Structures are given as C-alpha cells and as structure tokens.
C-alpha cells in the first residue's frame, strides 16, 4: 500500500517535472520594447483614434506538445496611456475615465488556451480594469519563433480582442455613449525564452 502510494507520488512528481520542462517560460520583452498594447476607439463615430499603453510587464508559458498548459499574464500601468495628446491623456487618467490613481494597474491572467492549429488559438482569461474583472477572449496568432542574433530564443504573437467600455464603469463612458462602446485592442507580444 505504502509502496503503491510512494510509487504514484514519485510518478506524479516525475510527470510534473517532465511537463514543467516541456513548457517553455518566456518573459515579454518590454525592456527592448518588442511588445505593444495598442487600442482603437472611434471618435464621434467618424474616425479611429489610436493609443497605447507604454508600460507593462508580463510573461507566458508555451508548451508546443501540450498547448493546454499555455498561460499568459500581463500587468499594465494605466498611467502610461499615450494617445499622443497630453491634455487628452491627462483626461483619460482622471477619475472621469481610468481613475489611474485609484486603479493604477490593469491585469490579464489567462484561464484557458484553445488551440486551433496553424499557430491560431483563442486565449481566455480574466481581465481586470478599474477594479472590474471580466472574462475576455483574445484571438491569437503566432507570428514566429526562433533564435535571435544575440544568443536568445524568441517567440511572438499578435492578439486582438474587443472590450466594451460600459463594462468598466467609467463616468465619461456613459456620456460618450454608443459610439465609444467598443474598444479594439491589438496586442503584439514578443517573449524571450528564459
């Protein structure tokens, strides 16, 4: 009995070690800035306004053999919002939009990775913004992976999703109304294997 338990314990540990080895761990290259979190929202319904978050950190695990082990987590510094117009950015950081003082971070923690083959996948996870956590899903495509010229190994993806402003209880969101309801996110993520 004890032998059996021990055996299964050892087996499980071995399996755990094996899977841990199979999943590669990556840190998102925000030092060399080969990663971008950009958003697009319509202005009055007449045009697209584009901006990005300049500071964030994150990492991901990638398991080619067993993609269900893939996971991603990202933390975004809200105050780093940049729409190329200082007064607008100030306004966006204020309590009328992001309230960056009260809610300095937005986070994404993945819960599932659904592989569709050919480097395509759906990444599901919990996204927290302004203290509101929502389940979101991101369409992911792998762009490429391989050795870099400096002795490292890199892997990059692009992700797209659409967020709904009304979910995040921004005061000004109610005023902007339906034309500003949908915010498209375009995420370009390059990880350096550890």
């Amino acid at each position: 009995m004890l032998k059996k338990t021990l055996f299964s314990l050892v087996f499980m540990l071995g399996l755990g070690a094996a899977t841990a080895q199979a999943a590669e761990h990556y840190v998102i290259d925000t030092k060399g800035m080969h990663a971008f979190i950009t958003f697009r929202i319509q202005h009055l319904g007449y045009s697209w306004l584009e901006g990005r978050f300049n500071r964030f950190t994150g990492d991901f695990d990638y398991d080619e053999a067993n993609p269900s082990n893939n996971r991603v987590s990202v933390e975004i510094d809200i105050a780093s919002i940049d729409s190329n117009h200082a007064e607008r950015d100030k306004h966006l950081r204020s309590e009328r939009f992001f309230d960056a003082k009260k809610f300095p971070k937005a986070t994404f923690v993945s819960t599932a990775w659904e592989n569709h083959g050919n480097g395509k996948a759906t990444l599901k996870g919990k996204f927290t913004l302004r203290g509101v956590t929502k389940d979101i899903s991101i369409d992911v495509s792998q762009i490429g992976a391989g050795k870099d010229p400096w002795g490292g190994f890199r892997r990059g993806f692009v992700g797209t999703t659409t967020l709904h402003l009304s979910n995040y209880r921004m005061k000004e969101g109610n005023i902007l109304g339906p034309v500003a309801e949908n915010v498209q996110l375009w995420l370009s993520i390059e990880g350096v294997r550890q």
Partner: protein
Amino acid sequence: MPLRNDPKRYGLVSILLHWTMAALIIGLFFLGEYMVDLDYYHPWYQKAPDLHRSLGFLVAALLLPRWIWRLINPLPVIEGKPWEQRTAVWVHRLFYVLIAGAVISGYLISTADGQGIDVFGWFDIPAVFYGAENQEDIAGELHEVLTHILFLLALLHGLAALKHHFIDRDPTLRRMLGPGERRSPSSLTNVTEE
C-alpha cells in the same frame, strides 16, 4: 494723469496693468473651474480651454513688463502699521511668484507632448520642455494648487483693500482706482523693495 508712479500715487500704466491682470486672473480662475467639468459633447468643450490658454498667454505676456515697470518706478507709500506694510510687500512678491508659477505650469500641461499652444488663432507658442514622465499630470496638479492659492490671495488682497478704504479710510484703494486727489500719505514710512 501721469503715466509713471510717484511716491503718492500710481500712474496710468500701473493702474491699467493691475486691473487688466486682475480681470484676466479672476476670469481665468472661473473659466478654468468651469471648463474642467464640461462633458465631451458640450459646445464649449473645446472653446473654453482654447480661450483659457489664450488668456493665460496674455497674463504671461503682461507679467514681465509689469515687473519691469514696477522696478523702474517709485512705489507709492504703503499705508498701515509696520506689520501691514511688511505683509503687503510679501503678498505682492508672492503674487508675482504664483502668477509666474500658474502660467508656467499651465504651459507645461498643454505642451507636455510637444504640441504648441495656439493663441486666439494668431500664432503658436512652441513647446520647449516636453516629454517628461507624466508631465501633464504633475504640471496639472501644480497648476491647480497654485491657482487656488492665487485666488485665495487675491481674495485676501481685495478684502485688505476694502479694509483700508472703509476702516482705515486711507487712499490705498482710491489711488488704484484712478486719478483721485493728491493727498499726503498718512505715514512717512516708505517701505520699498530692495
């Protein structure tokens, strides 16, 4: 009415500078308070800040000439007790510092991303110092604090003028209102700035 000050009264230039800047600064304070609460679809959402920036430039443009004019003109005798005279001198110095601070911090908000400031559509003031980390937010908080202190000081200044007029019955307020009669100063102590 003389253009220059003499030891008994203010000249026309000082009086005009004083009241023009008083009107601008009080107007800017209320315009500023009003505009920051406007919602995005309000017809004044763009006009009010445009006007605020342009009027702010006028204050900046008048401040240096006013200071120079103050330095090259005699200062009329300050009425009141020695502590009142000392306070008056320091309040006026503080006014210069606060006005300069308000103007500079306001300029640093609007130009934080390198965009210039358009003055009444006449010309553009270029951005000189920009791109500092969260410049628009830091400058914004400074602008709010400085302008509120400035407004309180202006209130104190106005109350003090009324006190001189109605309680001390000295010519402090009258000589800033216009020509007035020539009246020998009630005090011979002439407190001047070094």
